[in-house]
């Protein structure tokens, strides 16, 4: 991208592209002009600020979910469970194994 196009990109970033870049920033390092475009856009965009907040909440939430998985979460009373029939079948198979 030419320097002029980069400047144009920074000045004219729209919410859909800003959201895409903010999401990408969770997974990779943005290029300098991409970071600049998002920062400038965030100054005046309430929706994108809220989306950024959501992404942070989501990441924290997923991290918390993963950390809690090995203990009580997977034993919770609500959620999927093997049927009694499936458990019996597994026990039979494991008994042969």
């Amino acid at each position, binding site marked *: 991208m030419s320097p002029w196009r980069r400047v144009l990109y920074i000045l004219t970033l*729209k919410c859909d592209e800003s*959201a895409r870049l903010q999401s990408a920033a969770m997974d990779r390092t943005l290029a300098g002009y991409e970071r600049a475009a998002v920062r400038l856009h965030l100054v005046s965009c309430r929706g994108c600020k809220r989306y950024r907040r959501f992404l942070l909440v989501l990441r924290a939430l997923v991290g918390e979910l993963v950390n809690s998985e090995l203990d009580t979460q997977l034993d919770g009373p609500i959620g999927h469970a093997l049927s009694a029939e499936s458990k019996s079948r597994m026990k039979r198979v*494991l008994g042969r194994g």
Partner: protein
Amino acid sequence: MSSSPSDVDPGRWVDEHGDALYRYAMQRLGGVGVEEAAEELVQETFLAALKSKERFEGRSSERTWLIAILRRKVVDEIRRRSRDRAGSGGGEDAAGSCFDRHRKWSPLPGRWPGGAEAAAELPELRMAIRACMEQLPPGLSEAFSLHELEGLTGEISCKVLGITPTNLWSRLHRARMRLRRCLEASWLHGDRSERGTS
């Protein structure tokens, strides 16, 4: 919870860990229409554990050991499913419908609580996000699961799914957009406001 190889009892494994492993597999595979596959993976996990029980040294809990075996099987299953669906693009694009014709948010994203407020409602949030993750289309769910839940790097996630980094980022973006809408509908504007906390 911990045990030595000598007191291995596969029947007890099924009773003590079966449901937990099943939930793990269901969540990682996407949750809808994957019951049979998840059950199969749990059984394969127990069989693999039985074969390799000598290698279980008791340094971790039995549950952790079984989950580690299941994790590898889940990744293999996702790889296989992704290959079967090669070229599908990972599910339809819902991100576009969040913006108007001027490419601005429509409607605006909700106001998400942070810090102590969110922490206080963590159990409900956990349930809501689990339910929303299960509603993701398979291609998006697999990308999100590998990258965010399993913590695989972008490079390895791409290899497992057989896709390019650009495609992975796109899937992750679409997954997050869908999760946002789902969580806002089910939690931020749903049960939560009914409880008078919004």
